[in-house]
């Protein structure tokens, strides 16, 4: 493996990493507010479906189509996550059951809508989706330039921005403090006059926005249309990244990128001498094995928000 190869791997790895990071940030908002969200996968599907549909329809009309697609993905994700919020916050549903329902619903619903809208099992193919960009000047910097600024999907920069924004919102603002308090000790938050329901709604809907964006990003950068396999488990990888990244935006960034890279590595494995003799399946499995190893190595006390997954009941002592 030489330096050139590593540089080459960057844009690919970051393309894979961006939606993972976005969705995991969504999970961060939700869990920090105290609601486990295993429906990231389903929300991503809905976001991807909405993003792809809008892009297909608007592409002939405007060059902004994919960006409008991203926005629609966000909106659709929010709307869909509202279902999770309503059942698990208002109706005190077991959050795992509710999330599971959303995941099952997403695949049925999106494909059903595809049939209504496009008369087929998938959206029509858009002709471009998001396009890669080369950042002027910065891309000329040796090493860093080709790694981070040459022919990159703009969604990568969006993901990085969202990491910073998330960090700021969650750890530096009153909103963040309140959000976290609801995920740690909702009864305490309530006793301080914080509306736990509202905060949890905010958390879940934010997760819908982020996961919807992630889904749209994924389909618009890595696919040509939405199909039922467009998301293929990325929501669960995002969930893993959230745990792996210890519910911290920077950790999530690291974990998401780690996944991007180990996935990319599997494509390059056969060109790397010492790895070339191994069967391909070994490399396909690599990201997942590495994650487990990393989790064991970095296993620590750090656990997620204490009250995540717990049904909020005012009277509880």
């Amino acid at each position, binding site marked *: 493996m030489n330096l050139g190869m590593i540089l080459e791997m960057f844009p690919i790895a970051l393309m894979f990493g961006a939606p993972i990071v976005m969705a995991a940030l969504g999970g961060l908002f939700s869990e920090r507010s105290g609601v486990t969200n295993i429906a990231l996968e389903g929300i991503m599907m809905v976001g991807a479906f909405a993003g792809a549909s809008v892009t297909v329809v608007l592409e002939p009309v405007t060059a902004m189509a994919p960006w409008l697609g991203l926005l629609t993905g966000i909106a659709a994700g929010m709307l869909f996550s509202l279902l999770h919020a309503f059942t698990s916050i208002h109706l005190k549903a077991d959050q795992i059951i509710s999330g599971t329902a959303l995941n099952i619903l997403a695949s049925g619903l999106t494909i059903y809508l595809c049939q209504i809208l496009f008369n087929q099992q998938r959206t029509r193919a858009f002709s471009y989706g998001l396009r890669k960009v080369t950042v002027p000047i910065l891309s000329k910097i040796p090493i860093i330039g080709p790694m981070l600024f040459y022919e990159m999907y703009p969604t990568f920069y969006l993901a990085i921005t969202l990491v910073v924004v998330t960090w700021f919102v969650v750890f*530096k*603002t*009153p909103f*963040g*403090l*309140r959000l*976290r*308090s609801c995920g*740690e*000790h909702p*009864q*305490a*938050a*309530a*006793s*301080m*006059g*914080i509306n736990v329901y509202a905060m949890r709604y905010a958390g879940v809907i934010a997760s819908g926005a982020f996961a919807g964006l992630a889904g749209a990003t994924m389909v618009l950068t890595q696919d040509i249309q939405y199909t039922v396999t467009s998301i293929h488990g990325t929501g669960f990888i995002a969930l893993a990244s959230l745990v792996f990244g210890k519910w911290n935006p920077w950790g999530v960034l690291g974990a998401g990128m780690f996944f991007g890279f180990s996935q990319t590595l599997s494509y390059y494995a056969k060109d790397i001498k010492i790895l070339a003799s191994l069967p391909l399946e070994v490399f396909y499995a690599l990201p997942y094995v590495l994650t487990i190893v990393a989790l064991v190595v970095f296993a620590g006390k750090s656990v997620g928000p*204490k009250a995540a997954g717990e049904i909020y009941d*005012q*009277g509880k*002592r």
Partner: protein
Amino acid sequence: MAFIIEMLNIVKDFPGIRANDDVTLQVEKGSIHALLGENGAGKSTLMSILFGLYSPDGGSIRIRGETVRISDPNVANELGIGMVHQHFKLVHNFTVTENIILGLEPKKGPVLDIKSAAVKVAELSKLYGLDVDPFAKIEDISVSMQQRVEILKMLYRDAEILIFDEPTAVLTPQEIHELMGIMRRLVEEGKTILLITHKLKEIKAVADTCTVLRRGKLIGTVPVAGTSEASMAEMMVGREVSFSVDKGPSHPGEVVLDIKDLCVKNAKGLLGVKNLSLSVREGEILGLCGIDGNGQTELIQALTGLAPIESGSVTVRGVDITDLPVKQRLDSGLGHIPEDRHRHGLVLDFRLDENMVIHSYGSEPFSRHGILDYGAIRKNAERLIDEFDVRSGRGADTKARSMSGGNQQKAILAREIDRSPIAFVIAQPTRGLDVGAIEYIHKRIVAERDKGKAILLASLELDEILDVSDRIAVIYGGEIVGVVDADKTDENELGLMMSGSVRKAG
């Protein structure tokens, strides 16, 4: 004199029970007003109504003469009412400052202004002599510090009316003493305090007035100065209560529980118990007292197998149990009433009958060849419920979660005593219980002693230690700083030893 708080004819119903039945409470401004009543009498409910957590089903509330509707804690805050809950409402991985400003955060632009908040917290803390580090994390500070954070939360919000729900249940005598000082200070500054406690002594010490509830009903309001502890207790329970524990002299036999040079690490990885040696004889109660955090928990967990022992040895009737797993320790004759009944003592989602066989489900008659015999399990539970007067809604079928704290404690006690251990480690057996329940539990502990059991009783409650124990060991900094006879010592001496200023050989 004007009342600052008037709760008039309050009624509150819970499914199946009327928790407050036409209760009227009037509190004078600038006074400390105590609220007294058995477990489940409705004290917390009444205060929760005042604080806006529950809405009453009847009656009205007037604050400073104006009729108000306190629909949620925000309204209470605006009215200047603050509450320190029975179970603290603190976010454990937040700092002191973060906990205090939560919900009322100072901002610089869109950003949290932690710095200026911390300054304000420090100022308040100094003003009331609370001595709290604004940057410490809650999980790193002691229970009494946490309580002060709760007080600061109210002060930060300029509360004028402060409600304390059983604030002393978790404090050591010194800490209680300090808290009393703080309360007086608060009143001097013009605050009004509502104090819920089961301890009549505390009421005598600080309160001006006392309102007594029984089974949701108002029994009466009396000036503390002119009322004896005994008569307050009688108002509360409806019968006479004996305060001193009725026990004869002990007849200690041979050593049963022998602890030699024990070292145990605490959660932070430091030695929480250092070279500790102690022995308990059959037929005696050895009280273990000390300020919270001086190694009691570590010692008890090490003895009972919940924490690993670094070095040293523990024997029960000569059997070395130092390295044995929990199960084998129990089989060697050790018994354990845990300090935290919710965390260790019960599986809250199990039924009472299932909880009663938590140790013995694997042996006859409760199971044969690995198959449970629910008939026998139920019979066992019914027997214990009967014998120990465990009260619960649906008898053996009740989920442990829905039982009151006192009855949960009785259930644990029943289970453990019934195992008939020879060496009995008992921790905080009466935390948060009313005097009636305490009386009963003390009686049972003494009865066990009289059956020849060796009992190690750890309690933060000095009265309990003094009343129940035969000998008293004082722990400080993980070491035993003295062992004294219970009838030859007093609160003062123990207090000095507990703070590490006096050592005394046993």
